[in-house]
């Protein structure tokens, strides 16, 4: 199976991941090679096999609904690219 340049552009957009135009073809080749590797799984019959998402088959542990964290907004925003009045700034979304 192989991926085309158009496929790569579509996937890159889904992932909001910028890929330089001149690199698209190279990614298409690399990803096609990886996809060939992944497609090998098709040869194994897995009908009725329960999918495994956790190595010990544990389910998510629940905790009591209690406040344990303190407000550290100031501390966390120290490392933000751009903030104002306690808010994270991004380019205008609504005109």
């Amino acid at each position, binding site marked *: 199976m192989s*991926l085309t340049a158009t*496929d*790569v552009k579509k*996937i*890159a*957009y*889904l*992932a*909001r*991941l*910028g*890929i*330089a135009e001149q690199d698209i073809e190279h*990614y298409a080749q*690399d*990803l096609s*090679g*990886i*996809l*060939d*590797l*992944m*497609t*090998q*799984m*098709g040869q*194994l019959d*897995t009908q009725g*096999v*329960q*999918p*495994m*998402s*956790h*190595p*010990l088959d*544990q389910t*998510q*542990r629940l*905790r009591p609904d209690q406040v344990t964290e303190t407000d*550290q907004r100031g*501390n*966390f925003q*120290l*490392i*933000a*690219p*751009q903030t104002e009045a306690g808010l*994270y700034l*991004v*380019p*205008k*979304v609504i005109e």
Partner: protein
Amino acid sequence: MHKLSLSELAAGLRAKQFSSVELTQHYLQRIARRPELNAYITVTGERALAQAAAADAALAKGEAGPLTGIPLAHKDIFCTEGVKTSCGSKMLDNFIAPYNATVVEKLDAARMVTLGKLNMDEFAMGSSNETSHYGPVLNPWAPDCVPGGSSGGSAAAVAAGLAPIATGTDTGGSIRQPAALCGITGLKPTYGRVSRWGMIAYASSLDQGGPMARSAADAALLLQAMAGFDPKDSTSADLPVPDYGETLQNSLQGLKIGLPEQFFSADLDSGIASVIEAAVNEYRQLGASVQTVSLPSLELAIPAYYVIASAECSSNLSRFDGVRFGYRCQNPQDLTDLYVRSRGEAFGAEVKRRILMGTYALSAGYYDAYYLKAQQVRRLISNDFRQALAQVDVLMGPVTPAPAFRLGEKTGDPVQMYLSDIYTIAVNLAGLPAMSIPAGFSGGKPVGLHLIGGYFAEQYLLQIAHQYQQATGWHQQFPADYAG
């Protein structure tokens, strides 16, 4: 001093042969003298000396624990409050973590001295340390070769005596493979044994932190301080932590070793095959019996792993969006441009490949064929291990199909790079504990022996490794260029 074990260092500190400040200075000088290895991303000299002075005060008051005043270095994937945590990426080159990882908290509480943060493949995605934004790390045994990855900085630093011990993480072999290629002892614990809180996530159902050391006895001491239940990690195992040192001296009489036939295929380097054979014979001398076992689905571990790991990576790395922390592009035109260019400019090629693969595997129409299928293959692989470990106590084999390869040799072909993970990644899919211990050399380069045990059998693995290290001297070999 850089050839002493952790217990020898602890004894030296107690007997006042040297202070923690002197010991720390010794390591800081060695790090400064040998920059060519590129093992460290950040050296925290001042902090280290302050921690060492505090450790000396604790020692003087008789308040010292087994690790007090002993230096270590962290893989740069563990968040360290107030110190850059880059994860080997341009994305986090400006990231000063606002809190400590649980592992860092625990080792600080044990009064260990942090020398700095170690180089690694970008976001732990790589098998050669060549995907790091900070450049490759060299193998101290062969400077034209890779140290392995992703914990390449950890392995090279411990092998070259630039840290007595280090932390690492293992998602598909990232502790064991560099440990093997650099001739040190690495332990990947059972999934859930060591807290993942504050350990930057790559593939959350596979990631696990562990010690990278000069011996099994040293690894046991560090694991003791790293392991344990953490309510902050929702997949942390709520089980008591045994005393890892308690059984090290016990005999291996009656030990049943299984050799998975799929680990000894024609692709295996002949030098490695003979080292493994000699190591297994050594175990026979120690009272073990040996039989062949089978892991029939092993061959599909690589595709299953790269689907699951890429899928989890594409999801985990969506948090790097240029908004709350990390890299942001200049002059974004709109919000989409901000996301697309920040991520496009700051992630390297391998990280991009895996995000793209993962996004594809999870996208509408492909989920069942890739992600669901991979999770089913994962179940079959896990069942293979359960069946094999029902017959024997431990599985043994090679860690890698070949010794350290040359820098640049596999960077052009991602599939070739992935195939070199054949023996390690199945263990992560099953969530089992495993070790790599030095067992000899092939063409002058170190070879690791792979030990794979049952769930939470770290104590047993450490005993099996320690008994071998009592009978042999491979773990005491030091690369000549770094001995002095």
